[in-house]
């Protein structure tokens, strides 16, 4: 698996991002089991929107 595959759905559903669901449950449902995969999604912050104006 590649964690990037689950990013858009995780972002849309997790209450820590744009959704309203418990991130733990979302990750379980997505089948992202290993904590080293989970932390990648939980701790990620999209920065493109912040950098874009300074291009």
């Amino acid at each position: 698996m590649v964690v990037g595959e689950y990013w858009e759905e995780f972002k849309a559903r997790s209450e820590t991002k744009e959704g309203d669901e418990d991130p733990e449950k979302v990750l379980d449902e997505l089948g992202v089991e290993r904590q080293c995969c989970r932390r990648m999604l939980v701790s990620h912050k999209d920065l493109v929107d912040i950098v874009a104006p300074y291009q």
Partner: protein
Amino acid sequence: MTEDYEVEFIERGDRHARFLVRGVTPAFANGIRRAIIADVPTLSIDTVRMVENSSVMFDEQLGLRLGLVPLTTPLGEFEEGDTVTLSLDVSGPSTAYSGDLVSSDGMVQPADDNIPIIDLKDDQRLELEADAVLSTGKDHAKHQGGVAVGYRHLQRVEVLGDSDEYGEEETNILRGVIEEDGELVPTEEFDHDLTNRYPGKEIEVHDVPNAFVFDVDTDGSLTVDEIVTAAAASISDRADELEQAVQL
């Protein structure tokens, strides 16, 4: 291997499987593990020709990301070093995904379609042509087909007797697969806690000699069946090569 060995599946899927192998030495089990990781070649993007990149990232940053996209690799169709060309053309405002890659070979496709490559704003555009090359994990980690491949001993639980009547019932965590009267029981079945399975018993856990439970996950470029058989074949090929080399 002159000894007989047997394989039994505990879980079997396209991308993840758990199976028991009996009758192999620890060295051979590790050989299989290493072959899965380092010796089974997969296709991965290696060279990128940028036509236009007005995104916020540099060409080489995107090149790295493209290389990490797993591509389905048909077994036996390619030799190491063979290339397949893919192209990508996305204009903002939108996100370029791995699924936007267009392959020149129908058998070679991104294994996952929703991997974001770069978010493109208005007036930003990404157009490129890329060559995927067949190579091994030894050469670059992006060519590894196996993800978190490992094995552990099959174990069996020996009941020694009843535990101390007034002793404190402590959890006894074990992860893996245990053998019970010939039945294979994954520890998930009792929440990895032996006290759930053997309440009030004093127990001892033993490794079953020469029996290994493999846990194989793939990135989607190959199925578990393909990657394990290819790994075994690569060991066999190298053993033959060695035999030839040392003959008089």
